[in-house]
């Protein structure tokens, strides 16, 4: 468990990616030091429209300059407010929070499954693996979206040198179909390779990946979302139901859970 920091930072860089997708870089933030792939930060957005903080996965860090980057898509009140921030605006950050992805074993293939804005923590994770010496050719980067405009940061993925498998519902980029169909084909036809899956994305996608993992006996991890009043484990609001019974806090025991662990 990382030791979180609660401090103000500034919006240092702002990129409007496709459509409603944005990349924001905040700094200087002391918590960057301990950030790991899977961790998230909790952002304070003072406005009459939102009261809780909003959780955002860290997608890259610059430890030297103590900067961290998030990627988000405008979908509701909180993200609309965030999209109106301007360069140099101060922002309250709490983080890094939550647990992180665990490394694949040496002989394993890492099958990364990103759906929509599930991309940010997985991009961080893939880069982290590659930078740590994991063979990029052993990383399959499945990335699904509704249409071409949902597949962001393609240049970044290319640079990683991983095996990129984009798919869109309407076929406007990559293969046509649901990303989990692509994953299932790979698992079915993959022969006796040892695979570990890492998934983040919409609930339906995570449920499908969980099912696939259980069906093909492939281990792996899912990064979950839940509305988070506190993000640090004290409110008991962000719970998910465990298969073995009982609840777990997404912000504290998660956001990364093992395949088969959570009742989705």
């Amino acid at each position: 468990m990382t030791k979180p920091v609660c401090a103000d930072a500034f919006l240092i860089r702002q990129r409007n990616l496709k459509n409603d997708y944005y990349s924001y870089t905040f700094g200087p933030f002391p918590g960057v030091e301990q950030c790991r792939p899977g961790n998230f930060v909790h952002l304070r957005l003072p406005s009459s429209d939102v009261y809780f903080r909003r959780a955002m996965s860290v997608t890259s860090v610059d430890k030297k300059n103590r900067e961290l980057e998030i990627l988000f898509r405008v979908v509701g009140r909180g993200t609309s407010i965030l999209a109106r921030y301007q360069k140099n605006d101060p922002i309250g950050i709490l983080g890094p929070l939550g647990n992180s992805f665990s490394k694949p074993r040496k002989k394993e293939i890492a099958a990364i499954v990103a759906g929509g804005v599930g991309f940010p923590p997985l991009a961080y994770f893939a880069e982290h693996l590659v930078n740590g010496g994991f063979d990029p050719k052993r990383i399959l980067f499945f990335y699904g979206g509704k249409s071409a405009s949902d597949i962001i940061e393609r240049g970044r993925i290319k640079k990683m040198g991983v095996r990129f498998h984009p798919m869109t519902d309407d076929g406007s980029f990559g293969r046509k179909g649901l990303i989990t169909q692509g994953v299932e084909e790979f698992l079915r036809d993959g022969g006796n390779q040892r695979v570990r899956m890492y998934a983040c994305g919409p609930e339906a996608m995570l449920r499908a990946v969980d099912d696939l993992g259980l069906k093909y006996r492939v281990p792996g991890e899912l990064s979950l979302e839940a509305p988070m009043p506190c993000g640090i484990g004290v409110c008991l609001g962000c719970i998910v139901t465990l298969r073995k019974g009982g609840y777990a806090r997404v912000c504290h025991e998660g956001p990364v859970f093992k395949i088969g662990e959570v009742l989705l």
Partner: protein
Amino acid sequence: MKPDLKVTIAGVDFANPIMTASGCSGYGEELSGLYPLSKLGALLTKTITPEPREGHPPPRTAETASGMLNAIGLANVGVDRFIEEKVPFLRKQKTKIIVNVGGRTVDEYVTLCDRLSGLDCVDMIELNLGCPNVDEGGMQFGSDPAMTERTVREAKQVCRCPLIAKLTPNVTDITATARAAEQGGADVLSLINSLVGMAVDVQTWRPVLTYNRGGLTGPAIKPVALAQVDAVCNAVNLPVIGIGGIADFRDVVEFLLVGASAVQIGTTLFVEPDAPLKIVNGLKQYMKEKNISQVSDLVGRVRKY
């Protein structure tokens, strides 16, 4: 002049009047990762019940205008695991510990007080007489003065440390339950617990909480809390701990002025976990500006019209 924030309540000395509220700071472990708990006047535990409770199924929290709804359902580790797993940690903290307890029957309250009030690290016990989020127990204890009096009286008989009665705001006249708790022998009163509230998802037509209703807390309810604390301070001779919507040091000053001896910070911890530190600093600054040396000099100094 160095402002003195120490307060003494029912014989217990607190470093400052800023406490966390029950259910908003767990058992202290998580907050201690952000700052030393010695910065707090006291740490309140989540309500402890005789048996462990998982609480209600998710979703059990929701955002509202300047506040939130919750129906956690008293999820807690139960008294056995509390003593086994949480007390060792709490024992090491250099802050006062107040254990909040809840039962379904008067006997359960009594048993909990008996088991917990003798622990060396427990400075006070707070009776949760008004959690709106459980079917049995909880609210009926707090809305009926006779039940309040009886619960407090029986708990007090076994309690080896000062006893706080925490009152529910969901009543016609909170001074009636306050006087009943005083009559029953409470050493301190704390208020308010959460207001009963509800919200519905207009897309799914379902309540936003699986428990259908929940407790409304946060800055939204501060004026209600302040009015009730004011009323209770005028109705009883006990020290009162003010709770409800406190977000900054100004809010604390308001509660002190109407007569609270200390305050608890609840929902604000979720959005600003370091609020107690900021509040303590703000209070010190305020006292300097106003030339007030003792924080207790603010208590009850409101100048009513």
